[in-house]
């Protein structure tokens, strides 16, 4: 079971909109960290994912284990939020 979801995004990222659309269609709430508005959190996104890209989706499960999905990757995102 999913406890919470955080998406790291930017204002101009089309793939971020796709992740939001997918989670919205599944009825899953999520928090957004917009790196254009909070550039100081870039290092956090990089540390979590090892990638300098958005979207980064962090899925935290009820047992506090975390799964990080880089980019708009349905093959990874779908099982992560199932």
């Amino acid at each position, binding site marked *: 079971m999913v406890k919470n979801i955080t998406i790291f995004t930017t204002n101009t990222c089309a793939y971020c909109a796709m992740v939001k659309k997918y989670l919205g*269609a599944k009825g899953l709430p999520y928090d957004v960290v917009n790196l254009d508005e909070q*550039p100081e959190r870039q290092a956090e996104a990089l540390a979590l994912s090892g990638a300098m890209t*958005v979207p980064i989706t962090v899925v935290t499960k009820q047992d506090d284990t975390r799964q990080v999905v880089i980019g*708009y990757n349905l093959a990874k995102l779908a099982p992560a939020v199932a």
Partner: protein
Amino acid sequence: MTETKVHDVIMVGAGPAALAAAVYTTREDIETLLFERGVVGGLAAVTDMVDNYPGFPDGIEGLTLAENLRKQAERFGAVIELGEVTNIAKEGKLLKLETTSGDMLAKTVLIATGSDYKKIGVPGEQEYYARGVHYCATCDGAFYRDKRLVVVGGGNSAVQESLFLTRYATHIDLLVRSELRASEVLQHDLQKMVDAGKITVHLQTATNEIVGEDNHVVKVVGTDNASGKKIEFPADGVFVFVGLKPNTEFLKNSAIELDEIGLVKTNEDLETNITGVFAAGDVRSGSTMQIATATGEGATAALRIREYLEGHKQTS
């Protein structure tokens, strides 16, 4: 026993060509399902600014244009499913599509999967993918605030995205293998950035290697084609826009005919060699790879699909 639903038209892809086609088919009451494996709006959605799409005198952000096209198609009843089509084959008079949501049947199919940015194919490119090497400025540019960048390419995308990246980067070296091929308007805007010292253009410069240290990119090695001399460009990141490759890998096991570079062959009615399968936009052999022509081809394909379905109704 459950009967498998037969769709009037399944569109593979949800970029400008398919979304425009969907506006036309749904307004004709043709039941329309679109499959998109990537981003709705295709490459248009990840383009910073679109200045050559008619009707927008001040230009329009690619993401906004894509969003408007999506809303317009959905307003008339188009359904967009997020998933992937992996093969298309004839099944009697119908078409069978293998998809990540299972097999589906359709009376007609529109292939509108567009194209994606090519890779350069140099050492370091794969190794530093998403950790210094990027193909989407609007996605990843924000990571290069106050950093130095290299952009590779000389066409419209390379220049447009270089201009976008100046909002973050301190300096950009634009490496152009031969001459600039971007539109005059973009070259004019580029010149302003060159004059401001934000961008340096290196014509006749090949890109040979992307070099990293301690897990991040530090420089790009290139060659001056005229002198053959190696040049090093210090860089924290590299953005690559060196042309397009068609998204037709999923057709490799189908009977649909492709041209020598993998684009889908069609006749003048935009129909492929398989009856009932049409193609439009960047993925079609002979396409001019413009958003405006993609939407135009989408509209044409929709009208041909309507004619096909009407003929099919009369003969079935």
